[in-house]
């Protein structure tokens, strides 16, 4: 059974869906007009087996984030089906559940519960999370006293220590210093070796080449091409008109 399976998935958004006030509701009810729609994803199909690591590439607005949101079951597809089997930890926007007035330790507990740990698991992984984040004595200080780097380290640490089956990485490897970057990178490689599934979005093409084995190239919500990551990324960077940068330059 595939861990993630998208079957002919489309996701359509209405423009101006958010922030609707009563006045507009009434106006629209009295004088209905066709709403503008746009497809963030159209007819996307792919499968990811356990242990596979897939890179999603494409320009801004190509539908990469929508694809990750669907895989995280944050929203439902407009058409098609999304099946996900296993616990997902999404490194989308790190620290979504964090509150500046609570201490690092309190935030860890809340975030662990949000990411799906129960009481026993949360207690068991607490020390590991603190250790990995490397924030030291700051753990009992309110989060607002943390530097951005420290906060990101804490968030990343919670997410990777909840033992997910599927790790979703959205452009977050730019956090922290070089040392923490390698630590995160090692951790993600460790996930790969442990047979977990990874979906990864990054504009750092060299990172993707090392991290992933397959790739999906999206453009305007459609799959342009899918296949081995090396060939795909080479083609993609040709389409950008820029040569592939080396790993050293990209960092």
């Amino acid at each position, binding site marked *: 059974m595939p861990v993630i399976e998208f079957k002919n998935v489309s996701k359509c958004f209405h423009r101006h869906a958010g922030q609707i006030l009563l006045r507009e509701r009434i106006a629209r009810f009295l004088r209905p007009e066709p709403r503008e729609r746009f497809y963030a994803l159209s007819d996307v199909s792919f499968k990811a087996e356990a242990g596979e690591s897939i890179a999603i590439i494409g320009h801004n607005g190509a539908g990469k984030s929508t694809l990750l949101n669907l895989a995280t079951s944050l929203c439902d597809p407009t058409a098609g089906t999304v099946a996900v089997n296993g616990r997902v930890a999404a490194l989308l926007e790190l620290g979504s559940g964090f509150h500046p007035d609570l201490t690092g330790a309190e935030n860890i507990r809340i975030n662990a*519960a949000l990411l799906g740990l129960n009481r026993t698991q949360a207690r068991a992984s607490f020390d590991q999370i603190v250790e990995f984040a490397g924030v030291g004595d700051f753990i009992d200080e309110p989060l607002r006293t943390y530097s951005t780097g420290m906060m990101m380290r804490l968030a990343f640490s919670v997410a990777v220590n909840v033992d997910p089956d599927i790790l979703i990485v959205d452009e977050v490897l730019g956090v922290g210093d070089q040392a923490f970057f390698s630590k995160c990178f090692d951790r993600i490689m460790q996930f790969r070796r442990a047979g977990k599934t990874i979906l990864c979005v990054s504009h750092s093409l060299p990172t993707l080449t090392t991290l992933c084995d397959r790739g999906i190239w999206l453009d305007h919500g459609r799959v342009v091409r899918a296949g081995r990551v090396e060939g795909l990324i080479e083609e993609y960077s040709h389409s950008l008109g820029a040569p592939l940068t080396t790993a050293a330059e990209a960092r």
Partner: protein
Amino acid sequence: MWRGDSVFLLENLVLKDFRIRYRNMSLGVLWSVLNPLVMMGALTFVFTRIFPNPVKNFPVFVLCGLVPYNFFTLAWASGTTSVVDSAPLVKRIPMPREIVPIAAVLSNCLHLLIQILLLLSAVLVFGGHWNVHWLWLPVVWMLEVIFVCGLAMLTSALNVYIRDTRYVVESATTLLFWLVPIFYSFDAIPAKYVGIYELNPVANLVFCLRNILLQAKSPPSSSLVKLSLVSFTMLGLGTLVFRRGKRGFFEHI
């Protein structure tokens, strides 16, 4: 798929709300006590000195109205805005969305507990005595919490689609101060309106509390039946509306 422990998450979110609220107040938990005491003092002054009325033991009488009213307005208001206010969670973490308004309501319960203790101490201070009917207190309060949970689910889902909902709720709570017998007694209400009053769970709760705490008797079964009926109906309705509405939360927040 989110496969977490909903109860553990709920507990964490409730604690989070509570900690944030009280860490930023220098007087901490004292605020929960001070606000109803000040209101009690003011209303007692107005309704014994300016508009004298025959109600005995007015301070406790009015507190029996204020505590449920305060809880209801705070819990309903914070429940209504909870889903929109938790946008970062709702847009990023696939946990069951129902937890958000319920946590908002329950986090007011800690606050409520302190106020109930205040109310009970007031009863004892003003010459009341503990009696077996006090065992009804957890039951009627529980029904009230169930009612607010249902109502908060309903309005929090609506508030996502129509952002004016929160203002309607705010106005409704102001209005409710007059429509709930806080500073007047149930006996003063003309018979033809009593049936309508009993359908309002907040008014009904005030009635039950006064029965238990001031008259030392158990609440009439007709009130209890209406309170349960309205509370569970609201919970059902709220759950239904929320379930329908939550599919579009991601797009609308």
